[in-house]
Structure formats: C-alpha cells, structure tokens
C-alpha cells in the first residue's frame, strides 16, 4: 500500500490542530471506560433496533453496522470548500438531467456521445419532455467523497437514485452525544439534527403546482429491505406517513393513500424504491412493490416523485467521467472537486491499459453498486486478478477502471487497539428551490486492515462526522 494521509496525525507524534481537543480528551480516558462505552453503544443500537438486512445471507437477518467512537473531524475551511464543490456538482447534475430529458443540448454540442445516454438502461424515454417542479430531478444526492492528501478530495460516485445512510449520520451523532456529552462542550461541532426538517421543507417546495399544504409520504419496499430502519426513521422524524405500494393507488392520474377514514390525496412521494419497481404498468410488470399507474400521475404533473424517475442516467459509472465537462458546460465554472481519472473499458486503448495494469487498479462494474463485483487490484491475489480478467475481457463495456487512490485513514478501534483504517464521506445534498445541506455526512470506515471497501454490505463500519465551526 502506498503511504496514506492520516486524518488525525500529521506525523507519528503530531496531532493535527483540529483534532487537538479530541486527542487530549482521549488521552485522559481510562481504557476500561472506553471499553464500557463501546459496549453501551452496541447495546443501545441493538435495543433501538438500528439494524440493516444483508442480502444473500440468511433471508431477513438483521445486523448492526459497527459503530466506531473516534469521530472523523473536518475543519471549517475544508468543509467550506467541500460544500461549495458539492453545491456546484449537484447543481450541474440536475441541469444535466433536465437537459437530457428536454433539449439535449449537451448531446448536440458533442460533449457526451448521444448513444452513451440514449442507449443507457437508466435513461427513461417516458420522462422525455415531462415538466418537473423547479426542474429538479435529484432532490436528494449522497455524494461519495474520499481524501487522498491535504486538501485533495475526489468524488467517487454521485448517488442520485435512492442514496441511503443519512439515518446513521443522525443516530451516530445522537449516540456520541449520549456517550460523551462533555466532548461536545469542548468542541464546537456543527449540528446536523435539523436534517429531517430541512428535508421536509425541501420536499414541500417541490410539490405539484397549486397544492396547498401538500401531503408528503415516504414510500418503502417494506420491512425486509436493507434500509427499512432508515425509511421508518425519516418518516417518523418528518411526521409523515410511511407507505408501501399497496397503500397507494392511482385514480384519474391522481395518487391516493388508503386510510382508516377513506382515500387521501398524496402530493409528494419520497420514494425509496428503484425505478424498475415503481410502476408495474410502466416498468417491471412482476413488481409488487410499486403502484400501478404512478408514471401516468407523474407525467400529468399530479404528483412529485423524489428523486425523479430516470436520475440513474446521471450517476451511472459510464457517465461519471463526463461530470467535470457538465460543470463547465452548464455553469461555465472550473470543477471544485476532483473526479478520479477513469478508464472506460469499452474504449480499446483504455481496455488495453487496464488489462496491462490490473494489479494497480480498481475496476468496477458500470452498473454495480454497494461494493459488489469490484476488483481492488493491490488487495487481490494473482488468482483473483486472473478470474476478474476473464470477466473483463468477456464484457469490457460493463467495466471502468480507476487508479487505486491512497484513501485517507482515521484512527479506529480494532481488536488490537487503535489503528488507522481507510474512510470515505457521504454528505447529503438537498435540491429544491435552493441547494442545501447540513454540515456533515456519513463517514464509513473499512474495518479490515488495508481494505479500501467501506460499504456496510461488505463489513464496513461508521463514525460520527464532525464539522468544526470556527
């Protein structure tokens, strides 16, 4: 592994200034107290039922996501820059989505090859020409960011479909404040607890035109979904109904929910179901999770879906390399956040380079997510690399490759004590009439030594994320 940036220490003996107060405090804590607090945290998460389901494991089995008590701390100046970069990037992505589903200027200008968009499985022709409130498509974005060096941030993925994890951001903060209240007296940590209010405000502003006091609901696939806890959590925090497909029906291009007092019209649906499952009449006919006729209601402008149908065309890994171009095209600005250099294996030269350098590269499926089906060259055996090479050669269109970034690491409790582990950051960006976010995000940590895969489905854990105020 190349040398990596440590979030807490600038060298073996020197604590970075913004970690000073925390490091002092940690040094004063007797080890048994920390052990006791860690056990308390686990017990609390279990009791509250903050669990997620793992696919492919025992069906319906619930697990806890490991929580680490050493926070990831970001200073005010770095956050200001990150925030500006996120606003810029998400604004451009929404402009791009609106363009794709209307004039397609960016295709006409030859900046992105038309077939990349129009032949993309995530492009939804049914959304062509449909007018959406405020022209917003990705109302909630969960942008994955990693740090390589001092001030050097890269965007790994723009999650614009149904990004999850915000409930862990909020629960982790609650847990930290409960376990270590004194810490928050010593550090000026920016609050994140108003996220649900911000989200609800945002959802209400994108209600269809003319709806007074709009009714908002959260649509979940149900309690067997891996993120069910989060769906229930957000609905409760916003004080809106948590519905399943069977609770809704469409009549006269209008969506209603079935209540104990009869039908009630629904204006905004924060849906946590993928496009494919949303409407059996329009997409997968076998889906029992969705609502027949929902697409019609969207097209008639009678209901707003957040995120809109068809946002996947902007966060697809084959489109990712073009995001810096989008920023320049729509905003006339230089990108503030870096893209990771990406080799598109569908291109002959890129494929040749990738095949020649597999042990150094990270290779991902274009349509993959959740850390499934990827190769991390430096962490793989020769046999694993060979097996992956076969799959890559058989289907080069399905893959992209990127240099293995030296992800930054943060001190983390592991079996042998405290040791650095690689981390990423997922801030949640809300778009409506304006673009906004709470100062923070979900920090995920790869608990295996040397591992770069932080996904909870792959055994990753989480940390509280502190943005320090000046």
């Amino acid at each position, binding site marked *: 592994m190349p040398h990596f940036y440590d979030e807490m220490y600038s060298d073996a003996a020197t604590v970075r200034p913004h970690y000073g107060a925390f490091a002092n405090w940690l040094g004063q804590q007797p080890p048994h107290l920390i052990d006791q607090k860690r056990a308390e945290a686990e017990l609390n998460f*279990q*009791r*509250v*039922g903050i669990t997620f389901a793992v*696919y492919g494991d025992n*069906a319906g089995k619930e697990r806890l996501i490991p929580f680490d008590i050493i926070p990831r701390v970001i200073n005010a100046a770095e956050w200001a820059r990150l925030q500006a970069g996120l606003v810029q990037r998400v604004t451009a992505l929404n402009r791009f989505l609106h363009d794709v589903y209307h004039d397609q200027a960016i295709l006409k200008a030859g900046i992105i090859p038309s077939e990349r968009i129009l032949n993309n499985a995530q492009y939804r022709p049914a959304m062509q020409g449909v007018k959406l409130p405020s022209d917003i498509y990705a109302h909630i974005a*969960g942008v994955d960011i990693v740090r390589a060096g001092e001030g050097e941030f890269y965007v790994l*993925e723009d*999650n614009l*479909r*149904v*990004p*999850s*994890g915000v409930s862990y951001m909020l629960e982790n903060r609650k847990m930290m404040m409960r376990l270590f209240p004194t810490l928050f007296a010593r550090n000026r940590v920016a609050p994140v607890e108003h996220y649900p209010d911000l989200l609800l405000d945002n959802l209400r502003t994108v209600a269809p035109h003319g709806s007074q006091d709009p009714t908002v609901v959260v649509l979940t*696939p*149900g*309690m*067997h*979904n*891996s*993120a*069910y806890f989060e769906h*229930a*959590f957000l*609905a*409760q925090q916003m004080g809106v*109904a*948590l*519905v*399943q497909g*069977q*609770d809704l*029906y469409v009549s006269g291009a209008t969506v209603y*929910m*079935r*209540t*104990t*007092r*009869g039908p009630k019209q629904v204006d905004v649906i924060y849906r946590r*179901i*993928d496009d*494919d*499952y949303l409407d059996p009449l329009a997409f997968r006919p076998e*889906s*029992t*999770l969705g609502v027949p006729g929902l697409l019609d209601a969207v097209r008639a402008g009678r209901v707003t879906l957040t995120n809109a149908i068809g946002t*996947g065309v902007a966060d697809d890994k084959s489109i990712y390399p073009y995001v810096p171009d989008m920023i320049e095209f729509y905003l006339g600005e230089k990108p503030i956040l870096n893209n990771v250099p990406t080799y598109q294996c569908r291109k002959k030269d890129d494929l040749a380079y990738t095949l020649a350098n597999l042990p150094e590269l990270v290779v991902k499926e274009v349509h993959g*997510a*959740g850390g499934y089906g990827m190769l991390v060259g430096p962490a793989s055996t020769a046999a694993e690399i060979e097996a992956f090479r076969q799959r890559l050669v058989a289907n080069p269109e399905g893959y992209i490759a990127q240099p293995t970034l030296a992800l930054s690491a943060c001190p983390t409790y592991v079996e042998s004590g405290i040791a650095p582990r690689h981390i990423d950051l997922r801030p949640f960006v809300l778009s409506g009439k304006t673009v906004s976010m709470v100062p923070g995000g979900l920090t995920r940590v790869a608990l295996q030594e040397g591992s770069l895969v932080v996904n909870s489905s792959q055994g990753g854990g989480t940390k509280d994320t502190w943005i320090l105020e000046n």
Partner: protein
Amino acid sequence: MLSRTADHLYWMARYTERAENTARMLDVRVQYSLMPQSERAEQQGWRTMLGVSELEAQFSAKYGALTQKDVIDFMVRDPDNMSSITSCLRAARENARAVRGTLTTEVWETENTTWLMLQQHLKDRLFERDPSQFLEWVKYRSHMSRGVTLGTMLQDEAFNFIRLGTFLERADNTARILDVKFRFLASDTIQAGAQGEFYYLAALLRSVSAFEIYRKVYRDAITPERVAALLIKNEKMPRSLVACMAAVVANLHDVRNELSHDTERLAEGLYAMLHAASIGDILKEGLHEFMTRFLASVDELGNGISRDFLIPVAPPAPDAVPAQTQTQTQTQTQTQTQTQTQTQTS
C-alpha cells in the same frame, strides 16, 4: 391514518395479549399439576388446555402422546404453532417493526427488547428449568407493553386501534377459558367433593388474575355461578367479557368512519346483551352454548373491524373460511411477508 398502519397496530396488540393469555393458561396448568391427582386427570388437564386454543389435533399429529414437557414445548417455543408464545411475540414484534414510526420510542423498544430477551430465555432453556418464572416473565412483558402504551402514546387513532386489538383478543380468550373449564367441570374427571371443585375453580380464577378479586367481591365460598358472574358480567373486573366489550365499544366510537355503522351496532349489541343477561339464564341455556354464540359474534366483530378500517379495499376473500370459532389470525394479504427484495442503488 393508513389502513395498513392501523392493521399492524391492531395485530401487534392482539398478539401481545395472546402471548400473555397463553402464558396464563400454561401457568395455571403447571401449578395445578402439582396437586395430587390421577394420571387420567392430569392428562385430561393438558388436553383441555390445548382445547382452549383448538390445538389438540395439531399437537397429536406432531408429538403423539401428551406429556407436560411436550405440551410446554409446543405452547412456548414451537414456531409451527401459531399460538405459541414464541410465535405470538414474533408476530407482535414484526407488526411493531412495520409501524415503528407510529409508535413512541418506548413502545417500540419494549416490543423489541421482549423479543431479544425471549431469544436469551429460549437459549438458556428457562422455560424448562423454571416454567413458572418464564411464564411470569411473559405476563410482565405484556403488562409492560400495555403500560408503556398507556403511559407514552398520544390517545389518537393509533392508540384506539391498539386498544381494540387488546380488548377483542382478551374477550376472546376469557370466553374460551370459561367455556373449556366449565365443560371440564361438568365432566367426572375432577376429584370428587367440594375440595376438588374449589381447587379447580381457584386455578381458573388465578389464570385470569381474579382470585383475589373474587375474595374481595364475594367474601364467600367459591361457586361456579359466582365465578361465571365475575368473569362475564362484572364491569369493574378488567378481564371480564362485559368490561372488554365496553372498551371495544368506546374505542370503536372514537375511530368511527362512514363504513363502520354496522360494526359499531354489533359491538353495542354484544355489550348490552352481556349487561342484561342473568347468570341463571346463561347457565340454564348452557354456558357452552352461550360462549359459542359469543365467540362467533366476537369473530364477526373482528371481521367487521378488518373490513371497515384495516382492509378498506378488500382483497379476494379466501374460499374456505375455517370453523367459525377458530382463533383469528392476521391475513397474509396485508403486509406480513413481502419476499420480493431489491438491491439498493447505494
């Protein structure tokens, strides 16, 4: 409120109450088995207990001969037995999890903790080592569930549907216990003489926490007539049929909608009938006949509540409706197992 949400709340409460009642019946049976009695009477006692929940056939198909150990196993932890304590507590917790956002944190954590603790007790085999302690635990978790509901929930529709579930289930259970126990009383297996009858009735009263209440109310010998009067007609006795129906009527009134007129009339009719009936008449007609009619009405009431509030657009009705008096269970069409999963995008 969403119909599905009301459905989950209602069944969460019904299954919690059912677990408690199963524990009550088991506990009394365990206590009573400590009394000197013939093996035939002992066997008959366990059979009666299964009869209350109409589980004799399912039990013999699986276990064959009746032994205390097997019956306890079947009623405590058998996942195939929908009335076992484990099945009921799982169903209660799954229903709570489906609507955790509607419950207060305290109610949800109580249901979840009960389920987590149950796993531990099953692992430690507490119910084999010390059945009474285990059954006592089940009862107290149910008390806690009710208490935390009363103590923390806003008294809105959600609360009303929880209460409807609790009292409808309780009415059903009290009626079943009375029916079966009185049938047994009429048979010849009880130890002859006033003493045998005393212990038998005392056990019945304890199973519904009514032994001390009986003493307080009557200050007199325990007779079948008075026991029946207490458990059917005493408005102040929290597990009596009339008290349960009064609570059902009040909660139905609070959630009234355009469809629920007939269901409300039915509940009021049942309440008025219990209120007006004389114990002499009931016993003359035959307690079994009376309870059979009552249970059929409770069933009809349950169906009415489902139809009017919980499943407003009815799914196709199942063709074969099981025997009228069979214990009601949650329909699968609503919610329960949604096996279709999907991969999250992120």
